[in-house]
């Protein structure tokens, strides 16, 4: 793969990350009061956490971000911190470092979201492709309306319904959390088994709710591709229907579909966050939820930044994967 393409893509990645960090920096400073400082003061006033060390934290915070510092200096320090994933300490759960909290929660989310999204993408695309193929088995069309209705619902609302039905009314699955109450996380087989059982409903919400979206997109792409000359010629060559479907139609339709995946990652992340909240799943989403309720700004900002970075990485991977799929786009940027 030519260097220029690689550099372009990586450059775009860093650009986005930098822009995200900057927005994160700018937004709280737009309002007249610095919310972080306000919140810190508040928690001192409440006296919940050790007031003395909090005082020190506030002092060191002021030294870095206080109003006596020139803006560019604050900004520079901030960017430097972000680059090292140093997000400071949590205001409410003082003195825990924000990065520690996030990295504890991150694996849960990564696994859940990656697996669910991949399953939804593959199944949804296949389903959509079959919907558009005139020689597909008839039962496919029967499955379409329910799946498409599901896709109109936000993930987490579907999750709520699933919890009610399958965890509360019929006790097939646990009610929430990442593992059974009372267990402690570890690498034991038993724990992993619990983790899997607890992930099924959340994963199901994501898969059912997003499958329809991929199916629709794929169906539209397949309709377009089927009108192309090379599909006509494929049929005129007397190829078997399955070969035309897989190697001529699907293979070409999957390209814009993959691009769509890269663009949809932000949306997927947002949805996943809410799903975790609904299920009390111990990932990044629940962390966000709890920090919103307590206005733990440092956690909120650190989290947002990290998620943007994660999405950037995922997009970069997909971008680098695309030329492998489409031999036409090796050399120039579309």
């Amino acid at each position, binding site marked *: 793969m030519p260097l220029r393409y690689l550099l372009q893509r990586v450059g775009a990645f860093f650009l986005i990350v930098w822009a995200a960090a900057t927005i994160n920096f700018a937004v709280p400073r737009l309002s007249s009061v610095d*919310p972080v400082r306000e919140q810190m003061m508040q928690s001192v006033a409440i006296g919940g956490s050790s007031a003395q060390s909090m005082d020190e934290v506030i002092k060191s915070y002021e030294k870095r971000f206080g109003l006596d510092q020139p803006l560019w200096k604050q900004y520079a320090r901030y960017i430097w911190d972000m680059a090292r994933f140093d997000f400071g300490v949590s205001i409410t759960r003082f003195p825990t470092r924000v990065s520690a909290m996030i990295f504890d929660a991150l694996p849960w989310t990564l696994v859940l979201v990656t697996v669910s999204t991949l399953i939804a993408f593959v199944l949804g695309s296949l389903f959509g492709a079959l919907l558009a193929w005139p020689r597909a088995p008839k039962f496919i069309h029967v499955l379409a309306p329910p799946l498409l209705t599901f896709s109109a619902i936000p993930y987490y609302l579907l999750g709520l319904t699933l919890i009610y039905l399958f965890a*509360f009314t019929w006790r097939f699955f646990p009610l929430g959390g990442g593992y059974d109450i009372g267990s402690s996380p570890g690498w034991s087989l038993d724990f992993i088994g619990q983790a899997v059982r607890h992930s099924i409903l959340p994963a199901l919400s994501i898969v059912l709710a997003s499958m329809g979206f991929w199916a629709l997109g794929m169906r539209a792409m397949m309709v377009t591709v089927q009108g192309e000359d090379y599909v006509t010629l494929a049929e005129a060559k007397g190829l078997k229907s399955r070969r035309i479907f897989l190697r001529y139609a699907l293979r070409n339709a999957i390209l814009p579909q993959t691009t769509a995946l890269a663009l949809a990652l932000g949306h997927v992340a947002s949805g996943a966050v809410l799903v975790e909240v609904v299920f009390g799943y111990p990932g990044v989403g629940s962390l966000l939820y709890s920090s919103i309720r307590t206005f733990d700004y440092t956690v909120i900002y650190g989290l947002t930044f990290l998620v943007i970075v994660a999405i950037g990485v995922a997009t970069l991977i997909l971008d680098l994967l695309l030329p492998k799929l489409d031999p036409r786009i090796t050399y120039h940027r579309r």
Partner: protein
Amino acid sequence: MVATAEAQPATGWFLRAPRALRAYPMLAVGLVLLLAVALMSVIGPLFVEKERVNVGYAIPDQRPSREYLLGTDTVGRQMLAIIIYGTPLTLKIGLISGAIGLSVGMIFGLVSGYYGGFWDHLLRGAADAFLTVPGLLVLVVIATTFHGGISVTTQALVVSALAWMYPTRTIRSQVLSIRERSYVQLARFSGMNGFEIIVREIIPNLLPYLAASFVGAVSAGILASIGLEALGLGPQNEPTLGMTIYWSMYYTSILRNLWWWWAPPIVVIVVIFTGLFLISAGLDQVANPRLRNRT
């Protein structure tokens, strides 16, 4: 199918509309759904007084009964009233963000697609960049800065900040293809200036895409606002659908089997989204004849 429509004299679009709708069943059903929801918001207040929405109005935790048609929640609000008075708020947010998203998207898309060059790179790059960002999180960052005191209109504005990207992209790519068509070239050669061409030649051909983008932006707006509200970041005192869900989770309605608290908002949301979705699928068929159902 054709017979009945042909028999009547085609006097005006009013008579022709039913036939057009029959050609696009999805569009028709979608419109009907949304109309039903809107109707409920308009007619409902005639039957149910606004006070029923207030905390402490009724006996809490009541199952649906003849007196409380949809039951009551833990703080004594009547669910039916909440649905009737809360839905229009959600719709309002959707419309505002749809309008803003479409307007900005139209301007950006037209400028980017028609004039190209620097503007194209800038606007398109910005749109792509903003798309990769997880919208909800950015909104969370913005919303938390307000420290909780947010009104419905403010929330609509916040949500609109992320509603313009898809319209921009869609409109831009359509403008690019329309720009190369012969009648536009002809207009350019005959001396029309850019602005005139845009208004007279390009926009009329964009109408199905404008409509589709609007619907998309409304959808995205409602989705984002419900998401924000479900996290507790919406207008605290208004009975919007999202806030209702937030409160229902806050008071653990699932474990207490208060299904009438969280189910009605979900049903209304599903109806709204299904309606929007069908409308946009129907508009897709209008724009792209190949997607139509063949008789």
